[in-house]
């Protein structure tokens, strides 16, 4: 079972991000479960959502306590206490940031499991609005390889039919592209 925890702020599409991940997994014939951190938080407040992906039906109802991946939609959340709680040693960390945040390098997880990407800028470019979640999903697909970019794009289009969906998909595609290329360089240099 692969468990994802998404951190963001109310209004950034944290919940729909988790939902799109679950839909993408569903499209790949997997079982998936997405749910928000329930509460009455309003726009701007720190919120979480969760997604589980598995090959067998998912019965577990507890929140994601040991995530295999963290998606952080807003760099200002980095100082939030307990942000990284339960993160598996070889877990992934994806953060929406145009530059490497301080202390990012010092993280426990393997270097090629962590990534900062200017998703908001990509969103601005493709949607005209700084809604990072779609771009982050594209990046997540490239980073973790848990989900195919095709199914992610389809999930995005299912969630946002029409123009907005295409724009979001484009942002996701672009993010995926960027990450893939970065990874290739990394491998190249490694060789």
């Amino acid at each position, binding site marked *: 079972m692969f468990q994802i925890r998404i951190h963001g702020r109310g209004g950034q599409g944290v919940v729909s991000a*988790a*939902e799109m991940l*679950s*839909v993408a*997994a*569903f*499209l790949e014939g997997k*079982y*998936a*479960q*997405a*749910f*928000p951190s*329930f509460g*009455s938080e309003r726009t701007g407040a720190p919120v979480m959502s969760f997604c589980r992906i598995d090959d067998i*039906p*998912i*019965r*577990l*109802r*507890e*929140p994601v*306590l040991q995530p295999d991946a963290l998606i952080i939609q807003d760099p200002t959340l980095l100082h939030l206490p307990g942000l990284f709680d339960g993160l598996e040693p070889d877990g992934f960390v994806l953060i929406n940031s145009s530059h490497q945040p301080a202390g990012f390098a010092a993280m426990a997880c393997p270097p090629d499991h962590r990534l900062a990407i200017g998703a908001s800028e990509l969103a601005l470019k493709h949607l005209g609005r700084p809604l990072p979640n779609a771009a982050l999903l594209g990046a997540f697909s490239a980073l973790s390889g848990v989900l195919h970019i095709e199914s992610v794009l389809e999930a995005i289009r299912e969630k946002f039919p029409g123009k907005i969906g295409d724009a979001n998909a484009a942002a996701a595609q672009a993010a995926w592209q960027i990450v893939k290329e970065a990874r290739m360089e990394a491998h190249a240099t490694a060789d």
Partner: protein
Amino acid sequence: MLRQIEGSRAVAESVALCRPEVICAYPITPQTHIVEGLGEMVKSGQLKGCDFINVESEFAALSVAIGSSAAGARSYTATASQGLLYMAEAVYNASGLGLPIVMTIGNRAIGAPINIWNDHSDSMSMRDSGWLQLHAETNQEAADLHIQAFRLAEELSLPVMVCMDGFILTHAYERVDVPTQQQVDAYLPPFLPRQVLNPAAPLSIGAMVGPEAFMEVRYLDHCKQGQALELIPELNREFREIFGRDSGGLLRAYRAHDAETLVVALGSINGTIQETVDQLRAEGMKIGSVSLCSYRPFPVEALRKKLASAKEVVVVEKCVAVGVGGIVSMEVRNALTGLPITVSTVVAGLGGRTITRKSLRGVFHKAHVGQLPPLTFLDLNHDVVSRELDRQRDRRHSGPPAENILRDLRSPVCQ
């Protein structure tokens, strides 16, 4: 058709497939998405021959349903928490008049203190209202139970509550096989009311009944619930034939055949419990669980049969009879009368408190070694409560302790 959708949406879709004729809507978290979805389907024309009414309160919501049902229309509404209490008078009335209304409960705690999160206090408060109460374990089951509920309600002329855990199910995106209209039509015949308001054949419905007959009326209600005990498994069998899957029924056992410790619970927590059972089984513990789908009627015989071979039974329940303890446990104990089985109560998840496998393992272990006290409040912050209790011992005063507790939680001592 298989879809990855939100639980509320799945329920809305399957309710729509039941061809309801009158739907009453009043918003209350976490049930809201269901009526929103239905409202959209009525407006869009996807759901035809249906009147969607935005009422001014839950009391009105059920009252309108009472009227429409008495007039022969298949009627549906949904509510939760305070809303259910606000309509309490009508809840008893609907069952007393034998009106086959189906109502979804997005289970949620009851204030004060005000709390919007999940537990079972709301539907438990109506457990003696004469309604049938079915609890869904998954969103698939939530969707399926509504279809069975209409059939059950209309065959017995009794109202049915389909209870699904607020947020945990209502807001969860899961894979759900949404049935086809053909399947539902094959399973659910058009509504033929047992009695109907009809100018051509006048009746006076809702008479005042005095001591000379009131007892008989109640006894007959009691018998009706007995009939439901027989009907529910039948409807479940029929459902399997048409829809090809197992949903509903009185109860479902999980790895119970040789279990010494059996866990009993209602609703979605059974999933987490089963995960925990698997872990403990892997470690060699003889444990299993029983998921109670039908809480009203309470399947005394069926449950007794399932639990008879156990040494100890742990009832995990999301509600508490303040001053007493478990509510479901009392009924489980009653079902096990005369059997040498210890039944312990674990009150868990009140007001949305997370129930983790870790915590469950703990209590199940204790139970297995006979160290689990009769009543446990799972993951209770003992430090906070003992401080509050001390304060109260010093200085008696009225008023809610919530403020104090919140202060303590913020104070470093408890962190």
